[in-house]
């Protein structure tokens, strides 16, 4: 999806955010804005992964909680909670989603040279959701595959999540 991945010796301008205990990196080019917590409308009977709707400048945008996909425990929002509004490519169609983050760190260049494939063992989440794991200052940063995560939200995936 991002040409940077195919050329390992390049930098990705990435927004890093914290979810659970992990740090995730999202390509900054796909991020539209970062919002403070806004009122969330819960959609009854929706999959837990995308159970909310928010108003982003007059637009109704689904709110996704990546924690559900990564098997993390969900927790109520606090003062640090942010919503990262971002463009996602879903089956060739671009859509806008909000992504919940416990904390948003910064926008920085992420060196993808050392991007390691997700190990087969030792992780709780499904490997297809992760494009790779980068390191920065001895810290592991997960580069998620947003396309795969949102793509997996069929009815069967919803049943698995809840």
């Amino acid at each position, binding site marked *: 999806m991002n040409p940077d991945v195919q050329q390992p010796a390049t930098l990705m301008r990435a927004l890093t955010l914290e979810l659970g205990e992990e740090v995730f990196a999202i390509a900054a080019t796909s991020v539209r804005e970062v919002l403070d917590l*806004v*009122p969330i*409308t*819960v*959609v*009854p*009977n*929706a*999959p837990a992964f*995308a159970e909310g*709707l*928010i*108003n982003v*400048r*007059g*637009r*109704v*945008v*689904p709110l*996704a909680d990546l924690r559900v996909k990564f098997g993390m425990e969900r927790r109520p929002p606090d003062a640090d909670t942010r919503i990262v509004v971002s463009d996602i490519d*879903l089956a060739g*169609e671009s*859509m806008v*989603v909000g992504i919940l983050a416990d904390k948003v760190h910064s926008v920085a260049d992420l060196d993808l040279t050392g991007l390691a494939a997700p190990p087969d063992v030792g992780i709780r989440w499904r490997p297809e959701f992760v494009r790779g794991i980068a390191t920065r200052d001895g810290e592991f940063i997960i580069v998620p595959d947003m396309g795969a995560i*949102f793509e997996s*939200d069929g*009815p069967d995936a919803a049943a698995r999540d809840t």
Partner: protein
Amino acid sequence: MLDDLRDLGPCDIVANASALPALEDLDPEVSYLEWQINLNAACPRASIDDVFLFVSDGTDIEIAPLAAEESTPALAAGAERDVTGAPADRPPQIASQRPVKTEIREKNMSLRVAAERLDELLDRVGELVIAQARLSQIASDSENTGLKAVTEEIERLAAGLRDTTMNIRMVPIGSLFGRFRRLVHDLAGDLGKDIDFVTSGEDTELDKTVVERLADPLVHVIRNSIDHGLENADRRIAAGKDPRGVVRISAMHQGAEVAIEIADDGAGLDTDRIRQKAEEAGLVAPGAVLSDHDVHQFIFHPGFSTAREVTAISGRGVGMDVVSRTMESLRGRIDIASRPGEGSTVTLRLPLTLAIIEGMLVRVGRNCYAIPLSAVEECVELPIEAARDTRGRNFLSLRDSLVPFLRLRELFSVEAPADLHQKVVIVSTGDQRVGLVVDQIIGNAQTVIKSLSRLHADIESFAGATILADGTVALILDVAHLLRAGQRLERRLRNHREEEVA
């Protein structure tokens, strides 16, 4: 158009601008120009009529054979008066280069704008209205009279701006009718039928998207009328009718709906044949008692066709199925009325706009929901005994008729305790009714419909979402789906009771 005439033969074209008033007296909406075209050719009058086929509505056209001293047998002169829309300072010679433009029918100045820009404008206005609602909230807590005055002013302006923006999306349906004229003309030629195509209500306005999506279904209905409905001339004469068939298409406002009627004076639907075909296809058991109305519904079935053979025009059985599906997606309805020997009328009823509906806001638990007001029949209080009785009797006795009701809080798994006095909103379409139990009825609101993303596309209870004045998102209930759920509930309860009895 002038080129078309030239194709028929040598033309002598004169623009008559003698009626043109002085610049200051010129009314840009009035036509002053007259064209005189002497066509020196041997051609039937019909081929000249063809050239003017699409402008005959907005112009005065006189066609007369030229004086007899000309050597050619059938000569014609057309004098055409038309609206040029030319700015007053433009010399008539320049205007004459492209005098008969498509704007002829649109007598007003108009502008072509990309649809996305309108959507963007609507979004911005939506944001403005939301921000304005917040401002009003702040002003109402303030003692500052200056602030209050300005806030009221802004409130008024924002409401006006919103209405205007909504109106921009409305386009007259006449733009579609023009296209059908050609279709009817071509079909009449192909089938060798003589058809009079009459349109009315071209000025009726509908949301742009609705008009666009209507084109296909209307083509199918008109084709059906011409191919299946209208008989050929011999049979018409035998039936004592004018050999020239009439297809009439009209559009009119009816409350918050637009009704589009396509009527023909043909043979009407062949009820027996439809029934026979339906039985062959296994759609209905032979000998079942069905009203004509029920039988007519079969023509909307996919793959259903009564045509004896597949022609280029129809008979593949896809047409009415398309109509029915499109109407469903536009939240519209179809009615068919047919009288044997006298013709049939197909009526399509559509909401005025897809972008905005009048909604009733209700609260269930902490969430607000909007119910399309057009579907709301009445609101009653949920009787205490029905409220306590959480299982079993989910029926409400309403003026001697039983109405099943759905508890939205159960449907939506709301955990917060219910209000003491719950309300029931009775919604209906046609003869089906279902009550929706809510905690509170908040009031009416104009709601801008936003469709749900693909992540929520498979949740059937909701037709979309809207943004409330306080900036929160409210879901719009899909009444058709809830009615189906109500019917399922009714059936289940009935079976349950029968089991208990047994």
